[in-house]
């Protein structure tokens, strides 16, 4: 394992960069996914159509294509940002479709009669969603949402491969191709780096799952 120990500082930097990609993407895709899910169940037909369009587009386009579009397409439209920005943006757009579908499935699991009861009390669409539907949807949403998010954590490596220098994946690349280390030990180190993120996240999800399952 000497390639790992010799380059521990590189690994730590790579780990932190990956973590940043993941944290930004996590916040972004949860917020965006919630908005898209709200569109999908909205009483306003154009919003529903927009939500459906969004989900269909991003769920059925390979992540790499979304990333190419962001990193090379957007600059052609005059939008100039760092590769890090475009990479995170692409990952957010792509993952938001899956997040939205997980949330929508949860929303649909709440009996429609409760939403009707809320509306007939005079609660508007957003209050009905916030106070009645979403708290109950959460119970059903957590497990599938967890899988979506862990997939996203791993997809952050694709963002790294796309030229966001310095993340875990790129660190592995540099060590093997530029510095001639052997692939196996180097990428075992990379895998450990990702496991350090995904395993605790998985455990945390289980804790959350248990919490929301007990709360009525």
């Amino acid at each position, binding site marked *: 394992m000497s390639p790992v120990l010799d380059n521990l500082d590189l690994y730590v930097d790579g780990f932190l960069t990956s973590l940043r990609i993941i944290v930004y993407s996590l916040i972004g895709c949860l917020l965006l996914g919630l908005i898209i899910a709200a569109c999908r169940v909205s009483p306003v037909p154009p919003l529903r159509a927009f939500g459906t369009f969004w989900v269909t587009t991003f769920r059925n386009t390979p992540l790499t294509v979304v990333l190419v579009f962001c990193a090379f397409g957007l600059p052609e439209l005059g939008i100039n940002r760092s590769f890090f920005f475009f990479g995170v943006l692409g990952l957010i757009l792509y993952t938001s479709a899956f997040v939205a579908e997980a949330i929508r499935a949860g929303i649909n699991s709440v009996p429609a009669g409760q939403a009707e009861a809320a509306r007939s*009390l*005079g609660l508007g669409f957003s209050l009905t969603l916030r106070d009645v539907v979403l708290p109950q949807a959460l119970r059903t949403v957590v497990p599938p949402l967890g899988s979506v998010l862990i997939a996203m954590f791993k997809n952050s490596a694709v963002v790294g491969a796309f030229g966001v220098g310095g993340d875990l994946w790129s660190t592995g690349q540099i060590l093997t191709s530029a510095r001639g280390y052997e692939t196996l030990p180097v990428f075992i180190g990379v895998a450990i780096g990702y496991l350090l993120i995904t395993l605790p996240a998985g455990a945390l999800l289980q804790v959350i799952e248990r919490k929301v399952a007990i709360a009525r």
Partner: protein
Amino acid sequence: MTSATRQHPLVELSGVQKWFGDLHVLADVDLAIDAGEVVVVIGPSGSGKSTLCRAINRLEPIQQGEIRVDGELLPEEGKALARLRADVGMVFQNFNLFAHKTVLQNVTLGPVKVRHRSKGEADKRARELLDRVGVGNQADKYPAQLSGGQQQRVAIARALAMDPKVMLFDEPTSALDPEMINEVLDVMTSLARDGMTMVVITHEMGFARRAANRVVFMDGGRIVESADPETFFTRPTSDRAKDFLSKILTH
């Protein structure tokens, strides 16, 4: 506005038409309900009773005609509609209590979020209402821990907490075991005595005789007959009403 000064019916439907695809579910429906009136709606399954009831707070939009509540035309979906719905209480066949909230929270949600009452004030009023419908000692339980009859009484308290101008009941006792029907009907009868304006879809003819000012008989999306309970039950005029009554009164 009090009923003494009100110039118009509290609920007024005129020329209402609604279709589900090709199915004409509400046909030329005209109905005026005065403040304090209790109207029982009966009719065979699929005759449009629920649709009529749900149209009054626009849970079902109509395609033609007008519906007014306290003189105000039903608004399009949005803030104004939410405000109007707050004044129209609704009680459903399946109770539709909020499963993640306690009984007390079920009753206070509307007053706090829609009427902007303080939590203390809303709690106090909610407990009074829960006492009134006889489930005051269940306030901190969750709906799933209550019997059907108790749940439906909570649902009535939840609607009353908004101080509605009119209450709509869509078969409030149809999902209940027989021994629980009366506890709900008793609450409704006492509401009627206290002057609440009510539209009640029910097969409980005893309740209709006891509490209704008027019975409206629907068939095929139309109001076929409308009369006081005594007249309707003893001398129905239409064949369809006679036929319907002979079927339900024989058991």
